[in-house]
């Protein structure tokens, strides 16, 4: 265990706990952005620079900002008055701890492969070549999925009063 990994993992665990427990939703979203950035740092630390940068770009730049916008659009009157947790939170904590124990036991009892020596390095060039040759079909499918998801998202979030079909119905 190197010191870098220890520091990063402690930051990650503290940030994730804060993101899931804080009462103020905006603080939650900011902690989440920090957690995603630390994930990117861990990827970079594991010699996957390109993946780490993409992680920071997409998660911190897009998903965390999306969460922030959603929180600001959705803030209700009840904000901050009641407890942020469900009433049977003890059971929930127990179940998640049980899940963690199962994962821990599985990891500790399984025979993990010894990491190969030498530097595993991944360059953007290799990724680009593989994406355009071996993985070109999955790439296209993911592009289609993203387009469909974004159109669906815009359609769902649209105010229904202003859509064309509703106006037609009202006029008739």
């Amino acid at each position, binding site marked *: 265990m190197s010191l870098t990994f220890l520091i990063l993992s402690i930051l990650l665990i503290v940030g994730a706990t804060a993101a899931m427990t804080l009462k103020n939703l905006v603080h939650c979203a900011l902690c989440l952005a920090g957690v995603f950035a630390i994930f990117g740092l861990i990827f970079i630390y594991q010699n996957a620079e390109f993946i780490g940068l993409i992680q920071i770009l997409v*998660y911190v730049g897009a998903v965390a900002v*999306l969460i922030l916008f959603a929180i600001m659009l959705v803030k*209700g009157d009840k904000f901050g008055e009641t407890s942020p947790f469900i009433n049977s939170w003890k059971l*929930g904590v127990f179940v998640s701890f049980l899940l963690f124990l199962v994962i821990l036991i599985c990891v500790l009892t399984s025979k993990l*492969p010894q990491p190969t020596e030498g530097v595993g390095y991944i360059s953007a060039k290799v990724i680009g070549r593989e994406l355009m040759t071996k993985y070109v079909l999955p790439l296209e499918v993911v592009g289609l999925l993203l387009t469909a*998801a974004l159109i669906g998202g815009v*359609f769902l979030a649209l105010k229904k009063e202003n859509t064309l079909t509703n106006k037609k119905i009202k006029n008739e």
Partner: protein
Amino acid sequence: MNELTGYIVLSGIIFSIGFAGVLLRKNAIIMLAGIELMLAAANLNFITFWRANWQGDDITGAIFVLFTIAVAAAEAAVGFALVLAIFRHYKSSEAQDYNSLKG
């Protein structure tokens, strides 16, 4: 104790925290954020195993992470749009108030 074990246990801890967030929080947005956290923890496993079994030009694990990130972004876009649409109807962002999606 393997070098791998640290990363996988860390990933398990983050996954459990995200799971606890989905189970415990009332707010639907934070529940979706917990799902994002679980997906990111799974990505960490992919990168770790890809790095551990480094063989020349084989980058399947890293490519898989790229696709997971794309799918997670799509999921987030649709999820938050759904929460917004339901919020307009119920005037609440707490998942326990959503007992019907009709009308």
